[in-house]
């Protein structure tokens, strides 16, 4: 049987479209875990990256932390957390957040550091306060790079969230893990396809956010 046969069988089977183990439910679970991890990572990394980038201080420490976090094996971390904390959402969130933090941290730092200093000087000289300078002058210009960091974090997290299934949680990993266990390759391939599809959907999503949120003046100027 070809891989395409597996895929088409998986999606044509009406049993896969209902209930607890149906595709819609698993997709929502998967996205739920992913966005939670992404939200936590952004909440931690964005302020740190923006502030260090703005002041230009602490860049080396930042690079060190990011490199260290990147070296962490997600699955290994998950197993460790699972034995330490038991079943639950927390042991899954920790490796996913650790995965998402480096790209967000590094790009937001870099985005702020590369903002042209001239408009910032002009804004200050015109009497704009520090918060206004950050939100009205620096962030709009830094946004494309910040979004690219969030996008790569999102793609990695969405792909890696599958590991949640190994510690008895839901998500699209269920299809892969259960399929492997039952030697049901149709389900394995189907699940993998869905995960890949979601990762592509992230690219589309961030492209859309970029179109809406980034000023044409910034997009055109690059």
């Amino acid at each position, binding site marked *: 049987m070809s891989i395409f046969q597996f895929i088409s069988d998986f999606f044509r089977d009406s049993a896969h479209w209902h209930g607890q183990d149906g595709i819609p439910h698993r997709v929502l679970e998967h996205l739920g875990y992913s966005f939670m991890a992404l939200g936590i990572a952004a909440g931690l990394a964005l302020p740190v990256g923006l502030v260090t980038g703005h002041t230009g201080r602490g860049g080396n420490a930042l690079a060190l932390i990011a490199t260290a976090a990147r070296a962490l094996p997600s699955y290994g971390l998950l197993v460790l957390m699972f034995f330490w904390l038991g079943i639950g959402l927390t042991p899954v969130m920790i490796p996913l957040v650790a995965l998402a933090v480096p790209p967000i941290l590094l790009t937001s730092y870099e985005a702020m550091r590369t903002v*042209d200093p*001239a*408009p*910032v*000087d*002009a*804004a*200050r*000289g*015109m*009497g*704009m*306060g520090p918060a*206004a300078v950050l939100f*009205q*002058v620096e962030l*709009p*210009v830094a946004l494309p790079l910040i979004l690219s960091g969030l996008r790569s974090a999102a793609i990695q997290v969405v792909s890696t969230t599958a590991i949640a299934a190994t510690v008895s949680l839901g998500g699209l990993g269920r299809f892969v893990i259960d399929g492997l266990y039952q030697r049901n390759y149709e389900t394995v391939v189907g699940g993998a396809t869905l995960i890949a599809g979601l990762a592509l959907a992230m690219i589309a999503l961030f492209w859309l956010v970029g179109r809406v949120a*980034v*000023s*044409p*003046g*910034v997009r*055109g*100027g690059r």
Partner: protein
Amino acid sequence: MIQIESVTKRYPDGTTAVDDLSLDIPDGSITVLVGPSGCGKTTTLRMVNRMVEPTSGRILLDGSDITEQPVNALRRSMGYVIQNAGLFQHRTIVDNIATVPRMLGWDRRKARERARELMGRVGLDEALAKRYPYQLSGGQQQRVGVARALAADPPVLLMDEPFSAVDPIVRKSLQAELLRIQQELGKTIVFVTHDIDEAIRIGDMIAVMRTGGRLAQFAPPQELLSSPADEFVEDFLGTDRGIRRLSFFTSDGLALERGPVVAVDAGAEQVARATAAGAPYLLLTDADGKPLGWVAPQDAAGGADKVAVGSLLPYGRPFAAGRESLRDALDCAVLSPTGWAVAVDEQGAVAGVVSQEAIGAAIRSAHAGQREDGPAVPVRTTKAEVAT
């Protein structure tokens, strides 16, 4: 008036950017801070809007210490223009210009209306209003920068090398535009540049600063050119300061000769009379009195109408009698193949011709006149007219 009172700026590493500087910047005129790099001119400017805080000394604005009001209120009362304009690339041109009015709480419609009005004032086509900065040329961006600084109609304008990054032709037109705007608005402008020519062209008063942040001389441009305070200022002005100083003398007093000017339809008799005026060449004009070119008297002896226009010597660039300076007149004479300059009136018709010798005499008497009267005061109208 902005009074800088023994202001010093010393950095923690020991370098002194500005050293005990005192300067009274007069209202309603352009004061230029000029000097080589590292002379503290930009630091001085940035201390006026408190982008840099002085180590000692104080700065007064209309008699009160600038530290007495909140820093952002102070800055909003002073327009600020920097090199490369520093426009906000995510905002349209009209919204860039509306920045300060919006900060001051104007509603969006009124702020944009004001911004559009300013676009006209600085010579920008209103069709550019909805464009973004990257779609504009460097010169246009700099005009937006000036408009943005003028938006809330501040009495003071601080300009930090605003025209340094554009090419010489655009720079000249921006300078002319600034002088024109200044004639209409009469702002108190502090202008920083490293270009002494720019300083002389636009400044009513020029503060020459030397490395180490000390004031070398503070004087109107023609006084600077005629009597530099010391060797440093003299060097900084360059070798042709004598020629450049001529920009400040009008060509009003030149004795223009009409004798050697003949119309193209003049007969032999008129040519003979013109030849008797004693000039080595005759200037032929068309029926409207516009110059055509020079001809040797013997070639036109049979009547000006017999002369082939193609055989005339070019008359070069004429100067506008009375409106352009002695420097322009001299330049025309030097460039003319006959050594005589052609003066034209406002319609472009020949007002007369003048020899290098006569211009030389006018220069000598202008110098003598100035020595008797003492240093002349800057004549704003003369300067703006020359520039436009």
